[in-house]
């Protein structure tokens, strides 16, 4: 009986030592030690920040920000049938590759309860909180001035200037200056 106990414990000790050695030797490599999940998140983060940069560069992000909530039904995270350029970018880059995303537009409002709106990808519906903690995030800022026209239609037609239009989601943060508001667009992808 005692002999079997010794054997068992001896074998287990050997397993522990061998496992430690194998694990240690495999952990040493000259590349950064990222697990598969971390690599996936890093790739998504690159993609999200590339998409936002490209959208800001071509003006699509500006158009989309200036047209959200101003009477156009196309910019609502709905991925089918939209012809807004920014929506199409998000569709090709994320929806069609099986990724979901939430889009947060943060702006300044002296009333602290209303400083952010959120758009969600069609797949997850309205549940804004339903995203994993390890999602990739990218941000970009858009500056709006009083005389910029609001975008209507599929966000390429121009409407009345922002200081005069009704129903725009962001208020005039600096009424005595040419600056209307600064909107931070945050894209969370997983």
């Amino acid at each position: 009986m005692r002999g079997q106990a010794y054997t068992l414990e001896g074998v287990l000790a050997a397993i522990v030592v061998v496992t430690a050695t194998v694990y240690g030797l495999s952990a040493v490599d000259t590349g950064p030690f990222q697990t598969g999940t971390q690599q996936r998140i890093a790739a998504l983060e690159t993609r999200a920040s590339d998409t936002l940069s490209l959208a800001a560069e071509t003006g699509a992000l500006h158009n989309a920000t200036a047209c959200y909530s101003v009477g156009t039904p196309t910019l609502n995270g709905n991925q089918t049938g939209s012809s807004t350029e920014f929506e199409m970018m998000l569709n090709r880059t994320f929806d069609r590759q099986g990724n979901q995303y939430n889009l947060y537009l943060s702006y300044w409002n002296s009333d602290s309860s209303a400083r952010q709106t959120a758009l969600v990808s069609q797949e997850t519906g309205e549940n804004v909180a339903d995203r994993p903690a390890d999602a990739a995030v990218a941000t970009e800022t858009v500056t709006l001035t009083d005389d910029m026209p609001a975008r209507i239609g599929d966000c390429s037609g121009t409407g009345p200037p922002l200081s005069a239009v009704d129903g725009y989601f962001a208020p005039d943060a600096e009424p005595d200056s040419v600056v209307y508001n600064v909107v931070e667009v945050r894209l969370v992808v997983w």
Partner: protein
Amino acid sequence: MVASERGQLLLIGGIAVAIVVFSTILFAHSLAVTDGITTTGSADTIERSADREASVERDLGVLAARTRGDDLDGFEERYENALRNYTRTHNRVVASSGGTYLNATLNESASLGTEVNQTTASRFNRPGGTGSNVHWDIARSVDRVVVFNLTVTRIPGVGREFIVKVEGDSGDTWKMVVTEPGNKEVAVTPPSGPTTTCSGSGDADVDLLAGTCDIGGTPGTFPSFTETLDAPYTVRIEKGNRARGTYRFAAIGNFPGTSYDSGDTAPYPVVPAVDTTYDTPSASYNRTVRVGVDDG
């Protein structure tokens, strides 16, 4: 303790040996290779800084385009005011998501550009310097022109003409000839193509950048030199003493000493320079950027 039992001693000894072996391997590895596991973290910070800077610089360009307006004189003040408001709103908005603290102010001495003008109607003669009084270069090697307005009030005498010539990179010439045979006539000849003429009676207001002329209420258009020639340009006035009027020219280029004395030209932010300071938890730095003024 049951130290007298060899079984448990063996097991605990085994665990101790395993821990020692594992940490020795990692320690020896980190001595041999300087690449740490945390380098991805700092690469991320640098990437995000580049993105943030590009975003802010784009916003600065949009603000510059929107505050430029027609009134050149108030531009610096308007732009500084806009920068203050932009900075304040930007910091408020990004603070909630742990963003950076930004401070942006206009740096007039680092801005590029010069302005010359003549505000009272008089002959289009060389303001200072040496050389010919009537044929003189407004500027050479001009890259960006922000305003070029001319108003010709009168051309005394008969059969006289006043010429503005712009020479492009390839040597081609764009010419504008103003005469007053009764009515005023502004004839624009591009390097290749027909001559366009505006005519009317009264003062001739010409915007050479936009390509518009307004003579006593009669409007007209012509191809501007920016559309038909490649930079760098040389802008020249010929027979300047034949006409009287005012002008204003602001650009980046060489305003030669043969045409101007010091004090005849004034600096003007054609390309404004902005001192930006970024403060984040991990990095704090400042840069002076030249803002590309485009319409966002």
